[in-house]
């Protein structure tokens, strides 16, 4: 069993360490072999690499609880600071497992969309190679023990993710990919600047060695602020989200699932490493609050704008924006009385939230992809009857929606319980309010989509081709996985306090589930864009007339938030926000004693 707060302390290779190297080498070797063999064999190579890589991830998951502390591997036998160490702690293991699960499901989903046939050679060639590259990059991020190795992994991740956005080659997706590339590179530069400052201060970039040496000097604070701002730009946390909606909504569905489910978690994970492992004592109360304020703003803006969308994939992309905000609520809740970020229940909750969002959001994009392919479009007003044509996809969408809302026994439920518990212990009730509001908002857009999908077919016809059954099943399997995450033995990997979220199916748990559902329905009625067929609406005429004044009052702030989003997605505004955030983080860290 791991100690509750796995310290990344060991400086010698431990048994099983070579598994860590192999989990990076296998996808990378897959990239190289697939590139040479090319076109006809690219999918086959990807499948072999995915099977091998998943087996290695499984082996790490088995080996970690048996080792005392983290698994360590010294590359080339050189120990830090001269060499580089790979280290797997509980956090790495959890993320490795979630990544492997999502990659497997997406690979099954994409088999039909990216066949190695003559007509679609270009897209298939790029997709399978980039899929493996993203996997290798993420595994490097989860295992890397050195801030510069993490930078290289971030580059790998960005260069693999950007071409996925424009695989379809339309002008608007090319523009989205360009925006993504440029903004992500700005983030990289800020991260690299911070890394250089830290090396200049301490002569090492090893995470463990730095954690012993870092102190609250001005240069270290500047480094922390720059790196945080850069990573937030890559994670698309409000207000740095200009690139995310067009990129995630414009990519092919299998790619959207990877981008939304996994890629943004890479830079998020480095923020966690930086704040919890490298410099837990540096940020201080104000900076953690600032991070969560951005998260709360992301939840409100992302959800409200999601409810205003006409297209399903854009709605899901804005939902990702809101869910990214949710991930940052753990930071103030992990800030203990010792004046440091503590690896406790809040951290476990945040990581669990990341894992459940990875699985649920990938499932949601895959379900939306099947709907898009079958209907030939994804307008929410045109979803009528889809519940009858594609019951499995709609079920997958609904289940992943329930998981995201935080319904038991999902991983997000457990996460929410842990975060609420931490909020109560810290006396920070305001974050408990945000946590509940986040669940309600999620409920709102899920209800809105399901309501449109469940009405009988209007005049729309299916103009696309039927989605293969395997695609629907892959989405459903991943959604179920997200909804059943609460049953897994997380205590072996994450620092979960005793008794945290033990009640998963009792009466109390189920009654808590009603709040996001009912609240979500209310919010959806007030703020949603309703375009149901008129004959369906007439039944509700009296009700609609009764709530009309309230709805009008609610739509005014919603319009304001929509306009605010338009302004934030302008380049000059986004760049000003980026630098302002760096300055704000530096100021708030300076202000803390």
């Amino acid at each position, binding site marked *: 069993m791991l100690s509750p707060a796995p310290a990344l302390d060991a400086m010698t290779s431990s048994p099983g360490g070579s598994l860590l190297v192999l989990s990076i080498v296998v996808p990378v070797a897959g990239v190289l072999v697939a590139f040479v063999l090319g076109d006809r064999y690219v999918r086959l190579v990807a499948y072999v690499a995915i099977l091998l890589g998943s087996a290695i991830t499984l082996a790490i998951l088995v080996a970690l609880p048996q080792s005392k502390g983290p698994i360590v591997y010294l590359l080339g036998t050189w120990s830090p600071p001269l060499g580089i160490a790979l280290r797997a702690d509980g956090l790495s293991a959890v993320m490795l497992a979630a990544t492997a699960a999502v990659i497997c499901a997406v690979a099954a989903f994409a088999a039909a969309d990216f066949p190695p046939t003559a007509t679609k050679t270009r897209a298939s060639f790029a997709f399978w190679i980039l899929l493996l590259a993203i996997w290798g990059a993420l595994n490097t991020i989860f295992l890397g023990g050195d801030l510069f*190795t993490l930078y290289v992994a971030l580059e790998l991740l960005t260069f693999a993710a950007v*071409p996925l956005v424009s695989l379809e080659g339309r002008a608007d997706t090319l523009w989205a990919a360009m925006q993504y590339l440029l903004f992500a590179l700005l983030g990289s530069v800020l991260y690299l600047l911070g890394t250089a400052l830290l090396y200049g201060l301490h002569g090492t970039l090893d995470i463990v060695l730095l954690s012993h040496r870092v102190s609250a000097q001005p240069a270290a604070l500047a480094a922390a602020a720059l790196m945080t701002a850069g990573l937030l730009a890559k994670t698309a946390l409000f207000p740095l989200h200009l690139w995310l909606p067009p990129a995630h909504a414009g990519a092919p569905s299998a790619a959207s699932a990877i981008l939304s489910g996994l890629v943004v978690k890479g830079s998020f994970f480095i923020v966690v490493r930086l704040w919890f492992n490298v410099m837990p004592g540096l940020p201080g109360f104000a900076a953690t609050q600032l991070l969560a304020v951005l998260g709360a703003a992301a939840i409100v803006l992302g959800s409200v704008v999601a409810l205003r969308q006409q297209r399903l994939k854009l709605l899901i992309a804005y939902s990702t924006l809101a869910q990214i905000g949710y991930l940052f609520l753990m930071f103030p809740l992990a800030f203990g009385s010792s004046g440091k970020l503590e690896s406790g229940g809040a951290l476990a909750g945040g990581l669990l939230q990341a894992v459940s969002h990875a699985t649920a959001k990938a499932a949601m994009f895959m379900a939306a992809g099947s709907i898009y392919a079958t209907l030939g479009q994804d307008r929410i007003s045109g979803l009528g009857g889809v519940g009858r044509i594609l019951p499995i996809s709609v079920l997958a969408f609904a289940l992943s929606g329930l998981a995201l809302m935080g319904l038991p026994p999902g991983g997000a439920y457990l996460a929410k319980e842990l975060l609420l518990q931490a909020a109560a212990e810290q006396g920070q009730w305001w974050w408990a309010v945000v946590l509940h509001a986040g669940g309600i908002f999620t409920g709102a857009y899920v209800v809105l989509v399901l309501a449109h999908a469940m009405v009988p077919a209007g005049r729309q016809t299916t103009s696309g081709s039927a989605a293969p059954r395997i695609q629907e099943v892959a989405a459903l399997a991943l959604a179920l996985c997200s909804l059943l995450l609460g049953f897994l033995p997380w205590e072996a990997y994450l620092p979960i306090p005793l008794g945290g979220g033990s009640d998963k199916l009792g009466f109390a748990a189920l009654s808590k589930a009603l709040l996001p559902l009912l609240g979500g329905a209310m919010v959806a009625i007030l703020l949603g864009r309703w375009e149901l067929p008129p004959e369906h609406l007439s039944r509700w005429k009296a009700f609609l007339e009764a709530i009309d004044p309230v709805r009008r009052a609610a739509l005014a702030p919603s319009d304001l938030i929509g306009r605010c989003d338009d302004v934030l997605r302008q380049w000059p*505004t986004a760049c000003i926000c980026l630098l302002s955030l760096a300055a704000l983080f530096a100021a708030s860290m300076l202000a803390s004693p």
Partner: protein
Amino acid sequence: MSVATAFEIVLAAVVLGLGIWTTAVRETYSATVGFVAYGLLVALVWVRLDAVDVALTEAAIGGGLGGVLLLGAAARLRNTELVLTEAPGKATQVAAAVLAALTGAALAGAVLLLPDPAPTLAPTVVEHAWATGMTNPVTNVLMAFRAMDTMLEKVVLLLAIVGVWSLATDGAWGGHPGPRHRADPHGVLVFLARLLPPVGIVVGIYILWTGANHPGGAFQGGAILASMWLLTIMAGLTDTPPVSSRRWRLVLVAGPGLFLVVGLAGLWLGAAFLAYPPAQAKPLILGIEVAMILTIAVTLGLLIAGAPERSVK
């Protein structure tokens, strides 16, 4: 004030001025020319800082190949220049200027506050030179102590190729990147393309070889080879290879591929992944570097050539 100090002050002032001019100038073409000059002067700054390895790379990439790429882009953008003239409002400009100045000042302050002498791993690196039998500390860090980073960086280059190729139209997939260049067979370009490459190839190989003990290495050498190759392509003496060619794809993965194979051999037969037995370290590393210089040269050349445009007949 010595001559060297005076030179440094002038150099710093010119670099700063050029940087501001490049940012402020309106035409894309002028900005590109400014940027290329800026890259070459920054390389001089690195030389003054005794970082000759970095200087070589900066001159090759920032001034040379990056310049070629940007000039090509600027030529393509010339017709659209008139459309993109909307400037942000005054308030936005002032806010951006204030923030950029603030960030710059904070960075300068942070750099000045760094401990002096700086904590450094350089002596440790020199102490461990026995492990490879080579005395250039930069090569030792890149190829031995932090070999994993170097290998992954080469994979980043390969992904850049995949990204550029993915921009092709479906019809041109498998074909030759970029346009087929034609030049006057008696013109100066063709003359240079016949004259320079033999010299350039020798210099590129020399820089690789000397990198074991002196500044230089696979990346700088590869950049020189790439520029020689591009010269012959632009003079119309050779054509870019079709992207479906398996032989050329093998060259593109040779560097990271051999790195990976040697690394795995270390895992199975030796002490660890990417651990070289001290007796064979130098030949192994040189072997990887030879594969890398080829990979880097072809990668950089094809990155500049662009996406496949002409299908194979």
